[in-house]
């Protein structure tokens, strides 16, 4: 049985993943902003979880780095331990919106890169102090290659992927397992209103893939898995072709 803290469990892929944990009897701490949303998600996980599963809600805002350490501490205390930390929280905006609005760009870059790294740093320290554990963070296929529709968002995710790989090389032998999830296009509130490309996935399918990766300690996982092949092809494309195609 795991004791898991999930930042981002209120919606989307984080919600689906937290459900999988609770449904098999893992203890879950829902880390998030907005009391009411957190409360509703805690109630959902309690109702769906194996009877007896412990679910707690803890305030934590990815825009406020000072909330990270106390949140992880509260989670550890209220779950009687902590061995897995998951971050699905993140922000998205289209490249057009980011180019138009530097304040928004600063926010997305900070939240998706700097603050996510800072949160992972707190999680790393906590887990290592406890003798190890699993840290799973949601990056994106957008970080695999610079592409015109996701110039800035992709750059933040590329940074996050690089950080997670470094962490894995440095700390796996000390017992800290890092799982970097690279979702392709997934139908969630984040992508609502965007044009759906081929190979789009559902959050429930992603949750299953990620659950298996966390159990197995897989360092990099594409979800849905077909995106590994898609990205291999995209990465192999020569620059002059990339420049021409619109994705």
């Amino acid at each position: 049985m795991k004791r898991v803290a999930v930042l981002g469990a209120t919606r989307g892929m984080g919600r689906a993943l937290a459900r999988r944990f609770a449904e098999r009897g893992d203890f879950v701490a829902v880390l998030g902003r907005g009391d009411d949303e957190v409360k509703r998600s805690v109630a959902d996980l309690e109702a769906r979880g194996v009877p007896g599963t412990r679910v707690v809600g803890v305030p934590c805002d990815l825009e406020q780095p000072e909330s990270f350490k106390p949140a992880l501490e509260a989670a550890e205390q209220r779950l009687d331990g902590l061995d897995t930390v998951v971050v699905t929280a993140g922000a998205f905006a289209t490249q057009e919106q980011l180019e138009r609005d530097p304040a928004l760009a600063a926010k997305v870059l900070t939240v998706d890169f700097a603050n996510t790294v800072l949160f992972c740093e707190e999680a790393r320290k906590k887990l290592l102090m406890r003798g190890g554990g699993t840290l799973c963070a949601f990056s994106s296929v957008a970080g695999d290659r610079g592409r015109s529709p996701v110039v800035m968002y992709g750059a933040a995710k590329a940074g996050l992927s690089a950080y997670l790989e470094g962490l894995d090389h440095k700390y796996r032998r000390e017992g800290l397992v890092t799982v970097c999830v690279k979702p392709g296009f997934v139908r969630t509130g984040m992508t609502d209103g965007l044009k759906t490309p081929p190979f789009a996935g559902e959050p429930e399918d992603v949750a299953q893939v990620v659950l298996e990766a966390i159990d197995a300690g897989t360092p990099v996982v594409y979800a849905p898995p077909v995106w590994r092949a898609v990205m291999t092809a995209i990465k192999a494309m020569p620059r002059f072709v990339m420049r021409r195609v619109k994705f």
Partner: protein
Amino acid sequence: MTDSRIEGWGRTAVQGKELQPDNLEQTPPVLFRGLGRSYGDSSLPPSANPVVVNTTRANRMLAFDGSTGLLRAEAGLSLLDLNRTLLPRGWFVPVTPGTQFVTLGGAVAADVHGKNHHVDGCFGAHVRRLKMRVADGRVLECGPDLERELFLATVGGMGLTGQILEVEFPMVRIPTPWIWQESERVSDIDEYVEKLKEAAPKWPMTVGWIDCLTPGKHMGRGILMKGRWAHSHEAPSRFPSEPPNVAFPIEAPEWLLNPLSIRAFNFAFYWKHLPRTMSGIVSPFSFFWPLDFVKGWNRMYGRRGFTQYQCVLPNEAGPGAARRFLDVLTRRGGASFLCVIKDCGPESAALLSFPRPGISVALDIAIRNDTQALVDELNEHVLKEGGRIYLAKDTFTRPEHFHAMEPRLPRFLEVREKWDPQHRFRSAQSVRLFGDAP
């Protein structure tokens, strides 16, 4: 966001925007829709302001009491999700329609009925509380004993009184997740109706399929199914496995469903049931939701789609009402792939709830050039028999027919007027039937 095609289950469509927010509390005051399993235009926005809110991301359970079964959940929760979670723990919804791809909001708004209608009534009869947002923006609670008028107009009100945000109702304890089923081959419609009535006091769940193509003596021969939850000593100890679902591969060409292929299907279905009666343990998946095995089976009807015609012929129409209906149908050559017949129990207090004591007949009809004329003729017949049609299935009924069938309608419209004088919550269907501005 660009406009896209928004379809009902029968594939009638409008071009519009379908918003799918995570949070239902922050949506514009427009029509809600769930999984779009209503066949016709009930879940489609009006053409002049084609915006509709899809609720399916609001799918959290908010409280479940493991001793009483009382559940409160967001309106976009599907029965599929609910059953996956609670069926293994021995709980079942009080009423289920013939598909699990239905949201709680859709189940309330259409006041759906199931195989147990003659015993347990419609879904709405079990609802204790609804949390709603009404036209003036207020969020409030209603129930059988709270804002009763609004509640009774909302249950079965097809989304026209406001947005259902949360639903509270008790789940029902079941002895095992398996069904004990007895099925019987019946040789014509009169015998079928008789047997259905005979079975009602003995069986909590009944339904059947008939062949409505064979005219004359054998008209309406069919298979009657009766079921109850199995006791633990008769049922397997394992949990019934969810069947793998296959997707209907293509949008079928129009010729696929022709009188000949439909006749062959009906023939095979009838004679597959070789012994006159069969009984045994079956899985709830095949008993309740046989059509859910094939995902997107509505594509079988091709681009033009299909409509379901469902009416109830009241007891007052006297004996032979089902036969008279089938006579009209077969005379018109209205070939239907499926024809489901079931008896209904008492009428609900909800103002537009469909079922009333009598016989419900449901047919799937591929849309052809003469479909409007066929529906008109069926409606005129049903009107003569004192019956009415089910809004959740309807695409073709004319307002004058509907108004004549529904003496309860003025009362419903009056309550709706009080809560939404500007008709913010309107659908393609309410434009067609209730004279709302498009």
